[in-house]
């Protein structure tokens, strides 16, 4: 049982890291990025290509993530501009449709150019014993990276001036503008950060199981569910939701079986939304 729960936490940390990027972009600009999973996969393929040129893993990861971050920045400065020019429901809908278009393009290009590519980073070393359970080093490293990323994010948003600036835009765009913060550049920064986080998920995920070029839509849907269950806009919420859903996932797949597990997972997510429409840690608007 402990082993199953620990596995669930490992998986859940990945879920959380996936949801956090989506939640940030939504909190800031009201855009639910339907290409989030595709950006993650694109990051993985970028790393895979970098490794293919002969780079060692660590520099390859840095190069891949930098590339995906740059792409995120470019997307936000170009394609997302008409979205931010709208208000309310129109902005939400246009954001959904344009990012959906981006998802199509990324999926199509990957399917065309690298249909069978998959990133699989193997982390060597003997299993390490935690709470009497022998854990693979790959899982542990992936979890450590996820926890470190969560910690850094919370530190950034709570502890630094820039981070507080971002939060001020999330709470009140007009107010932030009045005190001299430019919401557009904050959005640029966060979209790029969100893309890097997406790429990071694909990289950590590939330490335990291969990430294939076609996994984009699965990542996107998972990110959506985690972000909504956690409360859109809440960083901590995304991680709490991710870990809970990760545990539900591994426990039910261990005791019940795969198909029913997905249904249990989805039912748990739906139930949370119905009981707490603002999410686990979200604020009521």
């Amino acid at each position: 049982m402990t082993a199953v729960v620990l596995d669930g936490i490992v998986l859940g940390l990945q879920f959380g890291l996936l949801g956090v990027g989506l939640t940030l972009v939504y909190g800031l600009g009201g855009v639910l990025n339907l290409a989030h999973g595709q950006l993650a996969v694109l990051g993985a393929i970028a790393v895979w290509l970098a490794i293919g040129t002969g780079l060692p893993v660590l520099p390859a990861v840095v190069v891949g993530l930098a590339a995906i971050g740059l792409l995120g920045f470019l997307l936000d400065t170009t394609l997302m501009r008409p979205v931010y020019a709208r208000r309310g429901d129109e902005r939400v809908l246009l954001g959904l449709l344009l990012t959906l278009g981006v998802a199509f393009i990324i999926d199509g290009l990957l399917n065309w150019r690298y249909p069978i590519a998959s990133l699989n980073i193997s982390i060597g070393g003997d299993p390490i014993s935690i709470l009497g359970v022998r854990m693979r080093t790959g899982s542990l490293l992936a979890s450590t990276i996820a926890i470190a990323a969560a910690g850094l994010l919370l530190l950034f948003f709570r502890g630094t001036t820039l981070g507080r600036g971002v939060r001020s835009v999330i709470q009140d765009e007009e107010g932030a503008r009045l005190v001299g913060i430019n919401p557009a550049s904050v959005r640029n920064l966060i979209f790029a950060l969100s893309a890097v986080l997406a790429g990071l998920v694909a990289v950590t995920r590939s330490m335990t199981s291969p990430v294939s070029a076609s996994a984009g839509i699965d990542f996107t849907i998972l990110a959506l569910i985690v972000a909504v269950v956690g409360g859109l806009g809440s960083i901590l919420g995304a991680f709490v939701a991710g870990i809970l859903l990760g545990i539900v996932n591994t426990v039910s797949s261990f005791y019940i079986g795969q198909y029913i597990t997905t249904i249990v997972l989805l039912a748990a997510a739906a139930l949370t939304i119905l009981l707490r429409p603002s999410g686990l840690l979200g604020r009521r608007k």
Partner: protein
Amino acid sequence: MRSLVPIALTAAALALVPLWLSDSDFRMGLALEGLLFTAYAIAFNLIFGSTKQLFLCVGALAGVGGYTAAILADRVGLPMLLALVLAAGAAAVTGGLFSWVAVRRSLDVIFTGIITLTFSLAFQNLILGQRNLTGGETGLLVDTGAGTILREPVPAYYVFLGIVVTYLVVFRLLQRSHVGWAFRALRDDEVAAELAGVNVPRYRIYAGLVGSGMLGLAGAFFAFTEGFISASTFSFGHVDIRVLVMVVFGGLGTLLGPVLGATVFSVIDEVLIGVGQLRQVVYGLVVIAFFVGFKHGLVPAIETLVRTIAGRMGARIGTKGD
């Protein structure tokens, strides 16, 4: 009666399609799928376009209809007509339930979307998991309907044309009735509608029930005409994303928007078969280029254009008359 003229014209245009496609079974199949998606799009438009409930379970509700009809007719041995009615009923009840829940918990667009999305995925897994009943990944061969004209390309096309026309008439009649008045009121300003005495929750649930019933019926008919259904026939990626794009492309809440959107994208699909794997890329580019350019979809854009031209011509005639 005048309000039914656009529907009659659309029906006449679509009825001519087999004249130049009937020599190819493959193309007739594509045309039939185009009509199936038109039917989906009209139903989705009734739910989302009229009452702002984002149902991301179009495929799943059609699947409830398709599998219910196939299983009731093949396994239980019910007559086809009864199976169709029960299939539509099952989908209507399922969709109505979502509307009821969304209304009770006052979920907004995004949350309704996510709840229905989870249902889509759960349904998909249910179909894959219940192998004995649904055939799992291999899919389900449907015997009912075999040997009848339902399996011939041209008659099947006209069956679906009948469905599309019926749906359009239902949509228009609803629009013209007090229900449509309430729909418009709650679409424009929900709070004002509530204050003016419109029972917003009740009309949302109506739309959910009727629209979902339409989806279920279309899915059920498809099971009988195609003779084969599988999880991917009704999957989120195959159905919902396309329907959403079609309806928003054509014009949310308009009568003919879904028809136009479904037709345009069916033609794009057909044209792009040649480019193979790059099809999806082109699809994405079209979606982006279009939505950056047009705000409210094609039908309203055309209406504005026609009005402008008519206005100018009117002005010219006016000056000549002086």
